[in-house]
């Protein structure tokens, strides 16, 4: 793991939690589009282009209807564009629908990126010290989801040979076949769970308060990035309290005016949203050419490597 993924889990959780918060607080296309662009850029740098393409369809299926349906059901607003089946379609409602679409897309992209960066074990690691048992149980449960999927695939392959299949037959027989498959999965898994319980007991589960093995260390880079994220978040929140970053659509569209305060808030937001992109991009830049003779280093003062431009001290 490299780049943003290699950072301490708390950095990533702060980042995604902050983005989610701002998505819900800030109702402004510029901010949201910046956010989406930053996340997509991050994922592309992480080599996740295929993942984005794969989930794009699903995302649009959910988001586009929101944009289309809002003007049909909401008729608030002052500027009427045209009438559709005797219903007034207002500019405000159209824009509001579009904004909803952007919000949905950005939430979707946040989770897409979150899933790649914050694996369940990282998330649990953060909570292991406060609630060790619940963290363990959650982790074990999370493990069962892909485990059961793998087992179900194997069962379906075998049971298909005896005519139990959810792919063919009437709806009723499919459903009963599905139940048969689930039953096989459950009996098998419970059988294994008995052995798992034995093995847990033999390894001393439940005799003392659990400690947590730490694989992650909060290093200086993590602290610097956290500080940067914190500054960005504070700046953005300050702007929000001042009432910036909100696009007024209802009851009537107010033409957006950019003041210097709002520009400062936007800069803070950009710092917050784009910091991981910078972390990731810097590492990509270090490795950009495979023909390089010396090993790349980000540490300042080494001859010939000034162009890496690392100047945070």
């Amino acid at each position, binding site marked *: 793991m490299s780049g943003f993924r290699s950072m301490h889990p708390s950095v990533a959780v702060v980042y995604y939690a902050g983005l989610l918060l701002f998505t819900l607080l800030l109702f402004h296309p510029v901010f949201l589009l910046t956010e989406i662009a930053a996340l997509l850029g991050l994922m592309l740098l992480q080599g996740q282009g295929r993942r984005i393409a794969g989930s794009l369809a699903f995302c649009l299926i959910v988001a586009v209807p929101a944009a289309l349906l809002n003007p049909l059901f909401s008729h608030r607003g002052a500027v009427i564009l045209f009438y559709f089946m005797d219903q007034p379609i207002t500019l405000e409602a159209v824009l509001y629908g579009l904004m909803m679409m952007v919000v949905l897309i950005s939430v979707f992209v946040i989770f897409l990126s979150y899933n790649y960066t914050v694996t369940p074990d990282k998330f649990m690691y953060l909570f292991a010290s406060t609630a060790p048992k619940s963290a363990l149980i959650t982790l074990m449960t999370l493990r069962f989801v892909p485990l059961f999927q793998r087992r179900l695939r194997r069962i379906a392959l075998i049971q298909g*040979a005896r005519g139990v299949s959810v792919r063919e037959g009437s709806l009723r027989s499919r459903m009963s076949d599905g139940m048969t498959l689930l039953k096989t999965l459950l009996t098998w898994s419970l*059988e294994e769970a008995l052995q798992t319980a034995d093995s847990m007991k033999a390894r001393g589960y439940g005799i003392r308060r659990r400690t947590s*093995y730490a694989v992650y260390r909060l290093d200086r880079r993590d602290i610097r990035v956290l500080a940067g994220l914190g500054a960005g978040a504070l700046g953005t929140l300050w702007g929000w309290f001042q009432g910036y970053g909100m696009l007024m659509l209802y009851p009537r569209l107010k033409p957006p005016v950019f003041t210097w305060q709002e520009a400062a808030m936007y800069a803070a937001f950009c710092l917050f949203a784009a910091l991981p992109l910078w972390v990731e991009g810097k590492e990509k830049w270090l490795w950009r050419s495979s023909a390089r003779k010396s090993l790349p280093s980000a540490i300042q003062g080494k001859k010939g490597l000034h162009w890496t431009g690392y100047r945070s001290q």
Partner: protein
Amino acid sequence: MGDGSGAIYYRGAELPLLPPETAAGEIGMVFQNPEAQIVMETVWQELAFSMENLGLSPSVMRGRLAEMAGLFGLEPLLYKPVHELSGGQKQLVNLASVLLLHPRLLLLDEPTSQLDPVAAREFIYLLRRLNEELSMTVIISEHRLEEALPLADRVLVMENGRMAADGSPREIVRAAGSRLGEGHYAYLPAASRLFLALSASPAAAPTDTIPLTVREGKRWLESAVEEAQSASPVSAERSIPSAGPLEKNAAGPARIDLTRLGGSGKGNTLEGARLWENGGVGSSFSRSGSGAFAGEAQSSGTGETLLECREVTFRYEKDGPEILKKLDFSLYRGELTAILGGNGAGKSTLLQLMAGLLKPQRGRVALPKGVTAGYLAQNPLLYFSHDTVSEELRHMAKYAGLSDSEGKREIASLADAFGLEGVLGSHPHDISGGEQQKTALAMVLLLRPDILLLDEPTKGLDPAAKEHLAELLTALAVAGKSVTFVTHDVEFAARYASRCAMLFDGSMAAEGTPEAFFGANYFYTTAVNRMVRDRLPQALTVEDVMADWQRFVSRS
């Protein structure tokens, strides 16, 4: 669960009175199924699990983990998801997780029964190292003893809940030769079995001459040959009755030879000769009736092709590696084919392709019209979805399109042949592993496939169950089916298969009768063959050697 009386003491303290910390920390246990013991998602979590339970501090955990990962070579696997590991690696992780608590006593319940031979050997030798370098007490229950027995200091034989024997490995071998009886032969290493079969008086031999390993076996064999030659005519005669203890077992090789002949008809002159020698004994194989059996063997002598793989190429994912590459392979009627190969060579994939469960990207798996294939997966639990064994069988019969009375008859005859009458009313999960496998096999057979494909059928079976399985498979092959199994078990393949094939790098690297196939191999062959190959390159089993003992003695 269950009733018990008596007490077990650990270092002077009764076991139930032991503080839980001591019990968990000082007594480590590894179980049979590598998968079911695993609790966490990734390797490091799994390793840390036991230490976290005991509340060790992070710095202590880090130190211990570093040490153990070094000892086991687990560093490259540390961040891998557990399900991506092989069975052997999983079992290593289980062992390491237990060892991280620094136990004084290590209990292992058939830890290698689910592993392939290479991984099993590594695992056993690791235990040996722990025992020698840390002086850790290791207690292991096992029925595959080729590697484990020579390493043991003390062997206990259990029978029907009682201690049948207790002693050093060599004493146990001698006891098996005299007191314990032949039932225990199958558990012994090949060298010891050969010794018991050929030695004039196993009970009288000095304990330290009893061979346990291939090296010792070869040495003993040389001295035995010398002895036999120096005492020339008299001892040559004497050596015939000396083969006595296994004479009754000689039905084994006889029936294999017969099926070999009934197979592809590739039997060479040596086999023909042996068939003659053992002809009388062969008729003692009566399960399917020797008369019908002989007729079948003649009628299918040509070996009609039942399935043909033509340049089969397969991969699981678009960008994945090619598992099979232009593989050509055929199955014939009446044959018992063994497919061998390393881990991840694609053996299971090939079986699933032949069973029609997967489709090749290129090439063709061709079956003549009306020929069907049945597939038995490694894990019989995948087949069970009803509450009793008989219900499972009834549903299967119904799916196979048998009428009620027909189904009943068929189920009764299968239950009889497989020895399942006693468990028909039990839940499929409550019966033993061997019975589960036989139940699943019976279910597959209800579909009346012409080709039977089995994935690692001997995994986890004890020698008696293996023997029974071999009888069933042989009878099926004799009845005109084509039986193919994938296995790591070289001894089993050598003993019972009529044809062996080696899958390597996506295609068949070698193929032939067991004699030709294993005789050509240097390492990948039976322990007996490795011992006697200088004199009898074609002999694979103890019975083969016994049959040729005379020539063996006279040749050199």
